[in-house]
């Protein structure tokens, strides 16, 4: 038995009886881990030069990017990274890094990279010969910027997966398109991507094929095909492929789609590993409020009648038109409240489906004149315009539309509040993300490659909100916490826009059809033009630290610059859920509350005990756990952040099992009313028997 695992587990030794954590055991576990596991496996090199030469010669690193730099510069960069004297603050962060991220020898026995080495390689690789950017990248990553897992993991490696791992595809109502998209799914899943597929435009079960009624099989069998494709195609067997299917709530197959995730569903229709998401236009909530029935439609009729796909119309605008049109079949009539209750039941039992609030997304979409956002991705934070490809017969060329690939990175909020130059940090992050998008070319999925080339979309997010609030003595969900995230995300928005404008200016290039966007017309900036400048409390100012407060005047200048020079990126911000990367950096995930003060995490490797960052036996009351946060406060906080985010935020809701479906419905309705764009998982904490008995006896 490994002593460091035992020590790590000792943290909780007396917790259930005395409530005291033995945090020093975790520090001891980290120390033992280095002594017993890391140091003995670490390959020794005389100096940096020998190390790099060895790793290139042995085919671990790519040669090309190393050759772009002078060896003296590279040595200096290593020194710069090591001068930060980085130490892993928890056993979780250290073991996660060395298990999953550090370069190891092919037989897995030797460790070839330490934390600083990985950072330097990412910097050199992404900067592509730009020495100034490489230096800035090391500064940013050693302190407050973290690229998403695929970038952090794969940069510079010779045998590697892709740098991006998030994709969205739109499937059309034809066998050609279904087959083509399944091919894309196999390819993207092979590269290690998570893929979202929109099934909204497929005709439902029982629809006509070639004019003959009752022939179509509907969306569920296609979803099963996707599920099987993802489980077959995994990244060298290392990680199971994953995907999500989306369907509009007015689609004829919606009932089957909702029940497909229930654990007790029929095996023929049950989706075991494919995630599901439902797209909900505002008209649904309005009908539900008035206790009306909703009518389900077939995208087949809509396309025949209007020449538009179901995903291309606004259901909220078109609903009554469709009802009145005799050429549109009314597939089924359902009570909206009952249908929504079914969704809530499915969410209690399986955590699915995710929900996308269609109109909340599209009303504020800055590229609305270029097209609709029809769906989201696997973590419900990416919202970008898509144009469906027309996949023709083999003897004709396909007409490729726009799909989505997205590369992500996150800012550590706590560290960012202490950096000297916040603007420079955000600009560095934006430039690194830009290079990831320039270096990515998914040849085998043309609509993704095309969109990447045209749109230069990126997704900069944030993490460690809860950790930062705890250091400042602020409760998650309090007014101070909401004011803080409001200011912080506004600054993120401002500086990412500014950076994107600067890059457009330097390159003399904007994203595709910038001139049609709300940025070009200036409409996007309306929300900031008459913003009130309130006095900020001293506590808020202290919590913001070095993060600048953006004034109305600053916005006015930026608006002019953006309208004049354009933007390089069609999309800039998105807040992902941040799993592994927040563990490595010892951050709390995303802008979410922690789920447990001390997480017991079953990873593929072992059971690891992870006390939240900055947790001590004295501040446990500040680390209120997600299940104890008032869900309305949580939604208010996310809504405050969402105002400043052009894409979305991955938001999980937390409930306990004494909740009813009605209570759950209520918080979703509240989220919709507050302008939230999506709800990711519903996570449930089972009350233990002790609690049940205790409250009754």
């Amino acid at each position, binding site marked *: 038995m490994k002593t460091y*695992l035992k020590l790590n587990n000792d943290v909780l030794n007396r917790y259930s009886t005395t409530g005291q954590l033995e945090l020093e055991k975790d520090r001891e576990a980290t120390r033992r881990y280095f002594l017993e596991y890391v140091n003995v496996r670490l390959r020794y090199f005389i100096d940096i030069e020998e190390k790099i030469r060895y790793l290139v010669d042995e085919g671990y690193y790519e040669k090309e990017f190393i050759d772009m730099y002078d060896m003296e510069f590279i040595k200096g960069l290593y020194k710069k990274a090591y001068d930060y004297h980085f130490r892993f603050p928890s056993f979780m962060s250290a073991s996660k890094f060395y298990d999953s991220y550090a370069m190891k020898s092919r037989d897995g026995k030797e460790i070839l990279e330490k934390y600083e080495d990985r950072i330097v390689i990412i910097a050199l690789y992404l900067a592509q010969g730009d020495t100034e950017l490489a230096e800035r990248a090391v500064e940013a990553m050693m302190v407050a910027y973290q690229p998403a897992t695929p970038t952090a993991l794969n940069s510079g490696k010779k045998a590697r997966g892709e740098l991006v791992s998030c994709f969205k595809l739109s499937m059309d109502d034809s066998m050609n398109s279904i087959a083509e998209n399944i091919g894309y799914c196999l390819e993207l899943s092979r590269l290690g991507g998570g893929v979202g597929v929109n099934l909204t435009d497929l005709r439902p079960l029982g629809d006509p094929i070639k004019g003959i009624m009752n022939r179509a099989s509907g969306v569920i069998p296609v979803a099963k095909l996707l599920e099987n494709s993802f489980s077959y195609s995994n990244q060298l067997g290392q990680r199971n492929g994953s995907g999500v299917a989306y369907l509009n709530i007015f689609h004829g197959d919606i009932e089957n789609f909702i029940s497909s995730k229930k654990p007790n569903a029929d095996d023929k229709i049950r989706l075991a590993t494919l995630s599901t998401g439902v797209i909900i236009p505002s008209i649904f909530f309005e009908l539900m409020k008035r206790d009306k029935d909703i009518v389900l439609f077939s995208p087949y009729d809509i396309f025949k009648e209007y020449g538009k796909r179901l995903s291309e119309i606004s259901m909220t605008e078109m609903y009554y038109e469709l009802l009145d049109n005799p050429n549109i079949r009314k597939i089924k009539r359902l009570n909206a409240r009952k249908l929504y209750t079914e969704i809530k039941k499915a969410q209690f039992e399986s955590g699915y489906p995710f929900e996308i609030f269609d109109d909340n997304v599209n009303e504020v979409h800055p590229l609305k004149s270029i097209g609709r956002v029809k769906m989201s991705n696997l973590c419900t934070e990416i919202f970008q315009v898509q144009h469906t490809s027309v996949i023709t017969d083999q003897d004709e060329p396909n007409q490729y539309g726009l799909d989505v690939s997205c590369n992500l990175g996150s800012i550590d909020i706590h560290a960012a509040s202490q950096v000297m130059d916040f603007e420079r940090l955000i600009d560095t992050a934006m430039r690194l993300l830009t290079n990831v998008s320039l270096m990515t070319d998914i040849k085998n999925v043309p609509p993704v490659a095309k969109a990447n080339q045209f749109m230069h979309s990126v997704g900069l997010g944030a993490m460690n909100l809860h950790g930062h609030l705890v250091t400042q003595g602020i409760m998650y969900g309090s007014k101070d916490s909401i004011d803080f995230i409001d200011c912080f995300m506004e600054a993120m928005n401002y500086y990412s826009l500014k950076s994107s404008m600067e890059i457009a200016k330097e390159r003399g290039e904007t994203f595709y059809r910038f001139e049609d966007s709300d940025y070009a017309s200036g409409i996007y900036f309306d929300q900031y033009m008459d913003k009130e400048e309130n006095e900020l409390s001293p506590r808020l100012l202290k919590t913001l630290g070095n993060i600048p407060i953006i004034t109305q005047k600053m916005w006015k200048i930026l608006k002019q610059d953006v309208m004049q020079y354009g933007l390089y990126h069609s999309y800039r911000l998105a807040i992902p859920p941040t799993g592994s990367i927040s563990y490595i950096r010892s951050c709390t995930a995303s802008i979410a509350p922690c789920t447990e003060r001390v997480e017991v995490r079953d990873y593929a490797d072992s059971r690891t005990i992870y006390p939240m960052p900055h947790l001590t036996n004295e501040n446990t009351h500040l680390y209120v756990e997600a299940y104890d946060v008032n869900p309305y406060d949580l939604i208010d906080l996310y809504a405050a952040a969402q105002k400043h985010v052009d894409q979305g935020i991955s938001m999980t809701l937390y409930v306990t099992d004494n909740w009813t479906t009605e*209570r759950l419905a*209520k918080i979703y309705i509240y989220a919709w009313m507050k302008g939230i764009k999506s709800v990711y998982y519903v996570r449930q904490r089972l009350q233990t028997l002790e609690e049940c008995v205790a409250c009754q006896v």
Partner: protein
Amino acid sequence: MSSLTYEAVNWNKPTSELAQVFWDQQWKQIWFPEEIAVSKDVKQWQSFEHQDTYKKVFAGLTLLDTVQTNIGMNHIAAYATDLQEKAVFTVFAAFEAIHAKSYSYIFTTLCTNTEIDELFAWVKKNEYLQYKANKIGDIYNNIEEGNSESLWKAMFASVMLESFLFYSGFFYPLYLGGQGFLRNSAEVISLILRDESIHGVAVGFFAQNIFKQFPKEKQDELKVWGYELLLDLYQNEMQYTDDVYAETGLSPEVKAYIRYNANKALMNVGFEAMFPEEEVNPIVMNGIRNEGSTYDFFSQKGSTYAKAKVAPITDETFHFNR
């Protein structure tokens, strides 16, 4: 034809304190072994040094769960007097059957048919295993109609089985799973444990209600009987542990864990703990926390989802006092 008067169970009026609570909690955590991808363990299993111990541990658990289904819960249900409590015991019995079957599911996934046959043959001839099955089985078989003492004894034995004797077996999968080894099989065990801990608390609680009605002298007599039974089982358990865990060098740790659980079993029936407190391997301890470990959506099912409580959406749902 007899002319007994049959009474219908009326859940509209509580006749038993907590029967409803135990019923709800049990159903909320329904699960089936097929939901857990045990096949993901196959790779590790193939190069596992202590396959023999692992298989025997599971075979032993299968026997205990079989006894608990076929005799234990069914007999207790048959002789319990309260109709709601009877229903709860019947539900518990159904879960015991799922448990017993879930070990077979693991065997089917990991072992060959010949190995499986050998294991079931081993169960029949292992003296320690048969000893505890007989000891507990006899008490179950001796319940008499209208004799609350015999029913209490059966409940006491049931708690010993579920809160104490199972744990010599649970130790190993928890110990390995906590270190990242055969994690999916460990997940099955943690789901079983979650059920057993309700059964232990529930049967213990009902037993205490019966116990309270006995006169003091009877209580003293039963206490002596209870501690003697526990000691008897404990001696056997020590030998069983040495027998099964010999190869692994883990016996001392397993024994500490058994004593820890013996104390818990005693507390469930309202008796004083018997063994002094000692340190139990923290990895195993963290494996039995009931909150469900942090859910990993990408790897496996996780033990934290449950049945929904349905309530209709009304006009009120759209009103917020904020």
